[in-house]
């Protein structure tokens, strides 16, 4: 069996990409804003900096688009926005995650009865 810490890390790594896509659904955000939003919920981000490699990968895969824009307070900001490909990837993940999470929940709570 995979060691526990490694498994949690891998699961978080896989899920955090979709959490980022979910945060971008319907509105664009800049990097620091995304980090802020992710750290608002405990357990999702271990180190804030790792968001940026994930963002550049999402960009390389065409799931998000970026645009630099001037900011009223300070330096320009790089805004991230979902592409149509990003939207469909998010929809697909949502559907599958729901099924998967419910299935795991069933075993964890009612495993004895089955």
């Amino acid at each position, binding site marked *: 069996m995979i060691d526990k810490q490694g498994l949690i890390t891998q699961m978080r*790594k896989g899920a955090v990409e979709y959490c980022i896509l979910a945060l971008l659904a319907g509105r664009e955000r*800049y*990097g*620091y804003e995304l*980090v802020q939003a992710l*750290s608002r919920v405990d357990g999702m981000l*271990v*180190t*804030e*900096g*790792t968001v*940026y*490699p*994930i*963002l*550049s*990968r999402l960009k*390389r895969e065409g799931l998000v688009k970026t645009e630099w824009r001037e900011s009223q*307070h*300070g*330096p*320009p*900001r*790089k805004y991230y926005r979902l592409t149509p490909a990003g939207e469909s990837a998010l929809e697909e993940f949502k559907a599958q995650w729901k099924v998967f999470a419910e299935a795991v929940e069933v075993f964890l709570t009612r495993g004895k009865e089955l």
Partner: protein
Amino acid sequence: MNENERRDLIEGYLERLSEELDDIPASARRELIEDVRSHIEEAWAASEDHSRAALLNILERLGEPETLAREERDRSGLPSALPEQKQVPLIAQSGTLSNRAVEWVLGIVGVALSIAGALFVWVSGPFASVWPFPALALVMWVILGFAGLAGVALDGEGGSRRWGLLTWGATGALLGSAIVGLLEFGLFVLPSAVVLALAGVLGDRRRGRNTLRQLPVAAAAGAASLVLILATLVVAAAIYQYSRVEASPKYPSYVTAPARPVPTTEATGAPSTRPSSAQQVEIPNVIGLPEAEARRLILAVGLTITQANYQGPGDTPDEALNRVPPGHVLSQTPAPGTLAPRGTAVHLAVREQ
């Protein structure tokens, strides 16, 4: 905290990040660094507390540069994306001898070989003739050997990923000196360069670095050592020229051949029947010396170089030929010890190589 302190902290962090990312394509590296810089500026602007501690907290929350770099490698799907602990050892099987232990052994063997090579060149007669190589080689090779080992030692977990470059630089410089001295003795430094290169490859694998990206450094170090040695040669040639004019050549202590008279044009307390004019030169005894050494000696006392006459079997009786090794002087005219005007040509008979 003043603006300078603030900038130093931020730039220091980004510099470390850049070092950790040295094996990642430049465009991706620049993008990540710009993203992180912009994050720091935003967080700073959003913070009401503008103390040094507040900035340290921002950097702390960002994470160690090494963590970010590992994430970037994992996410970009580079060949080095394997986490370090999952690297397959190149030679050693885990459990018996770790990769790291093999690197240490290679590093130590590399130093030992560089010392051995330098010592061999130093004590062995024929090679010692090529001044200033032995002195230079002894010092340089030993230093480079230890530099290679230091690279291995510092390239441990947690240290900067750049230390691997030290091993590669030393390897390149050793190879460079091997190329310059190839004909005379360069081969004696090759084993140590090869062993250190192996240690370098192992270190790169363990740390997930791309060896190809280390090679420019090795090449630069090689070129530098090549230039250094050539420059020393030029200086040495100039010194020879100078000592010839001085008419009192000084030889390094290791240039000694059996039964060679000390060449000099100074008055030596000889009988007054000998003309002690400065124009007269005593012909040195070069019989039995390597040809290059003989020529140098002749030039050094103010006589001129002559063409040599190469003798092989059939030209000269074998027992005469076998008195000296190939490439050494069989006989000379004028005879040793006679006086001749400055600039006189000395003719040499040399045993064929």
